[in-house]
C-alpha cells in the first residue's frame, strides 16, 4: 500500500506512445473546433451573411494592439479561472456545473470586504442618512491580500458544499451545484439590493469598494497599453494559477490522490485513499479557483459588485476545460480561443448585415457538443489508420 501511494509520478510511457497520445490529445479538440466552425458557418450562410467575412471579423479583431490583445487577455482571465475550476473537479471524476454560483458569491464577498473593512460609508445621497457603516478601515497592504483571500476562500466554501453533500449523503454534485447556482444568485442579489446599494442607484450594484483594495491594471506596467483597458494583475494570477494547478495535480501527493479517485474510485479506495476527502478537497479547490474570478471583476475591473456581471463564465468554463483536455496548458489555450471569439462578437454585431454576436454562443455550444461526442470522429479516423496504436 505504501509503495502505491509513494509512487505517484507516472511511469513514463515510451517515446512513440507518448507522442501518439499527445497527438490524439491535440487532434480531437482541433477537429471539434473545425467542425463547430463549419456548422456555425452554415448557420451564418443560411441567415444570409458571408461566413468568411463573419469569421474574419470574429477572429481578426482580437489581434490588434493594444485594444484587441488587451481586451482578449482581459476576457480570457475569468475563463482561465473557471476552466481550471472545472478541470480540477473533472480530474476527480466530478462535474462542477456550479462555477457560476461560486464566482458570484465569491465576487460579492470580495466586494463586501472591500466595503466593510475598507472604511466605505454607504450614504443616502439625498438625505445623507447612513445606510451601512464600515466595521474597520484597513490599509491597502492588509485589505488587498485579505480581499483576494476572501475571493478564494468563499468560492472554496461554496464549492465544498456540494462536495460535502456528495461525500456525506451521496447526492449528485451536478444537481446540487445547479441548485446552489440559483441560491447564490438570489442571495447576492438580495444583499446588493437591500444592504449594499447606494439608495437611488438605478443599477443593481454595490457601493464602490475602498481604493486601497484596487489591483493594478497592466497598463501601469506595460508601456503602450493604455490604462482604460481593464486587463489587470488578475491575468498574471491566472497564469500563476495554471502553473500551480499543474504542480498540484501532477507533482504532489494530494494531486495524485485526486486523480486516482477520478480514474478509478474503487481502486483508489483500495489503495488507502479516502474518496470522501478527495471529493470535498477537489470541490473546494475547484470553487476557490472559480472564486478568483471575483479578483478580476471586483478588484481589477469594476471596483464594486455588479449584479449579473458574469457572462456565463461558469458554463463557458466547462467548454474551456473540455476543449483543454482538463490540463492547465490546454485550459489556457482554450480560454484564449473563447476570449478571441468574445472580443470578436462586438464587430460582428456592428459590421454584418444579419448575424449578431450571439453567434459566439452558438459556436461555444457546438464546440462543447463536438468535443463531448468525439467518438463520432473515431470511426472515420480509424479508417484512415490514424488510430491504430493510439489506444493507450
Amino acid at each position, binding site marked *: 500500500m505504501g509503495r502505491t501511494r509513494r509512487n505517484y509520478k507516472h511511469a513514463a510511457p515510451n517515446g512513440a506512445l507518448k507522442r501518439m497520445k499527445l497527438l490524439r490529445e491535440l487532434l480531437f479538440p482541433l477537429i471539434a473546433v473545425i467542425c463547430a466552425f463549419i456548422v456555425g458557418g452554415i*448557420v451564418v450562410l443560411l*441567415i*444570409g451573411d458571408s461566413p468568411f467575412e463573419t469569421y474574419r471579423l470574429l477572429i481578426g479583431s482580437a489581434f490588434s494592439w493594444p485594444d484587441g490583445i488587451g481586451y482578449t487577455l482581459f476576457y480570457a482571465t475569468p475563463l482561465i479561472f473557471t476552466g481550471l475550476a472545472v478541470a480540477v473537479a473533472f480530474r476527480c471524476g466530478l*462535474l462542477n*456545473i456550479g462555477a457560476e454560483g461560486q464566482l458570484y458569491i465569491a465576487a460579492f464577498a470580495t466586494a463586501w470586504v472591500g466595503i466593510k473593512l475598507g472604511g466605505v460609508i454607504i450614504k443616502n445621497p439625498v438625505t445623507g442618512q447612513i445606510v451601512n457603516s464600515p466595521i474597520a478601515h484597513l490599509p491597502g497592504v492588509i485589505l488587498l491580500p485579505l480581499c483576494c483571500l476572501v475571493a478564494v476562500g468563499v468560492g472554496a466554501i461554496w464549492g465544498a458544499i456540494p462536495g460535502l*453533500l456528495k461525500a*456525506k*449523503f451521496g*447526492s*449528485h454534485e*451536478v*444537481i*446540487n451545484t*445547479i*441548485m*446552489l447556482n*440559483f*441560491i447564490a444568485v*438570489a*442571495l447576492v*442579489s*438580495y444583499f446588493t*439590493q*437591500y444592504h449594499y446599494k447606494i439608495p437611488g442607484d438605478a443599477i443593481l450594484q454595490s457601493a464602490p469598494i475602498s481604493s486601497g483594495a484596487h489591483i493594478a491594471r497592466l497598463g501601469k506596467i506595460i508601456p503602450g497599453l493604455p490604462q482604460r483597458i481593464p486587463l489587470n494583475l488578475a491575468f498574471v494570477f491566472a497564469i500563476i494559477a495554471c502553473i500551480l494547478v499543474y504542480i498540484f495535480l501532477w507533482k504532489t501527493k494530494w494531486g495524485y490522490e485526486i486523480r486516482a479517485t477520478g480514474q478509478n474510485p474503487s481502486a483508489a479506495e483500495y489503495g488507502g485513499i479516502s474518496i470522501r476527502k478527495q471529493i470535498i478537497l477537489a470541490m473546494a479547490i475547484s470553487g476557490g479557483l472559480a472564486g478568483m474570478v471575483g479578483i478580476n471583476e471586483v478588484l481589477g475591473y469594476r471596483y464594486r459588485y455588479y449584479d449579473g456581471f458574469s457572462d*456565463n463564465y461558469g*458554463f*463557458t468554463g*466547462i*467548454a474551456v476545460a*473540455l476543449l483543454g483536455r482538463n490540463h492547465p496548458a490546454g485550459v489556457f489555450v482554450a480560454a484564449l480561443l473563447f476570449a478571441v471569439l468574445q472580443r470578436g462578437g462586438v464587430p460582428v454585431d456592428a459590421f454584418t448585415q*444579419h*448575424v*449578431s454576436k*450571439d*453567434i*459566439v*454562443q*452558438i459556436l*461555444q*455550444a*457546438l464546440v*462543447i*457538443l463536438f468535443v*463531448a*461526442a*468525439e*467518438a*463520432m470522429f473515431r470511426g472515420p479516423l480509424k479508417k484512415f489508420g490514424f488510430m491504430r496504436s493510439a489506444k493507450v
Partner: protein
Amino acid sequence: MRQIFTISLLFSTIRLATPLVLAALGGLYSERSGVINIALEGLMLAGAFTAASITFYAHSPFVGVSAAMLAGALVAYLIALACIRFKANQVVTGTAINILFLGLPAVLSGALFLSSGSTPQIPKENLLPALYKFMPSFVPHWRILTDVSVMSLLALVIVLVTRYVLYRTPFGLRLRAVGENPEAADAAGVSVNRFRYAGVILSGALAGIGGAYLSIGQSSLFTRNMTAGRGFIALAALIFGKWRPVQTMLACLLFGFADALTIQMQGVAKLPSGEDIPVQFVQMIPYIVTIVVLAGFIGQSRAPRALGIPYEKER
C-alpha cells in the same frame, strides 16, 4: 394576508405550474430511461421560440404548439445521438444545448424579424386559448374556465397518461427496466438504446410544449432566455417528486405556488419594519428544497439506478 391568499393566487399557481409540469414530465421519460436531462431549459427555449415564430406566420396556436413539439423532439434527437450513439457525457451535452439555445433564437430572430432576441407580438386571438373556448355557449364563464389555459388541462391529462403508461403498459415497464437495470433488460431482449432514444425524444417533445406555453400562452412573444431557469426548476421538481408522475406534478404545483406568491406579494406584503419582503428568499425555496430532499433529510429520493451511465452492450 387577505390580499395575498385569494382565488387568483390559485389560478396563478396553476398557470405558473403548467410549463413546469410539462417539462418535468419530459425529464421523467428521459431520466427513467437512464439519460440525465440537464437540457430541459434549452429544450423549453427551443419550443418557446419555435412556437412564437411559427404562430406568427401560421396564425394558429395549435400549429405553433405542434411545431414546438417537433422542434423539441428534433433537438432531443441530437442529444440522444450524442449521448447514446457517441456516448458523450450527458451532463456536458445538456449544458451545450442550454448554451446553444441562448444564442440560436437570438441569431435566428435577428435574421427573421430583424430584432435581436425577440419575436414580434402575436395578436391575442392567435394565442393559446383559455378553457371556455371549448365549452358550449350556455356554460357560464366561471373563472376556472376563463383563467386556466387549455394547456393546463393538457398537462393534467399527460400526467395521468404518463402514470398509466409508466406503470401499466409494457412500454413503461421496459422504459423503467432500461433505466434501472439495462443489463437485465438487454438479457430479456429489450433494446436498451432504442428505449433510451424514445425516452429522450419524448422528453424533448414535452419540454417543447412546455416552452410553447410560455411564449404563446402566458406571454405573446418570445424574449431572450424567457425560461429564466424554469427548466432547472422542472428538474428540481422531478427530483422532489421522486421521478414519479403524480408526485412530480404536485412538486411543480408547490414550486408554481412559490412563484405565484412572490408575484402576489410584491407591493402588498410588508415586513413589520415597513419594507417589502425580499422576493429572493421565496425564489430560493425550490432550490433549497431540492438539495434537502436529495440529501435524504425529507424522505429518500432515489434516482433510477442506471441514470447517467451509457450502456455498453456486452459482446
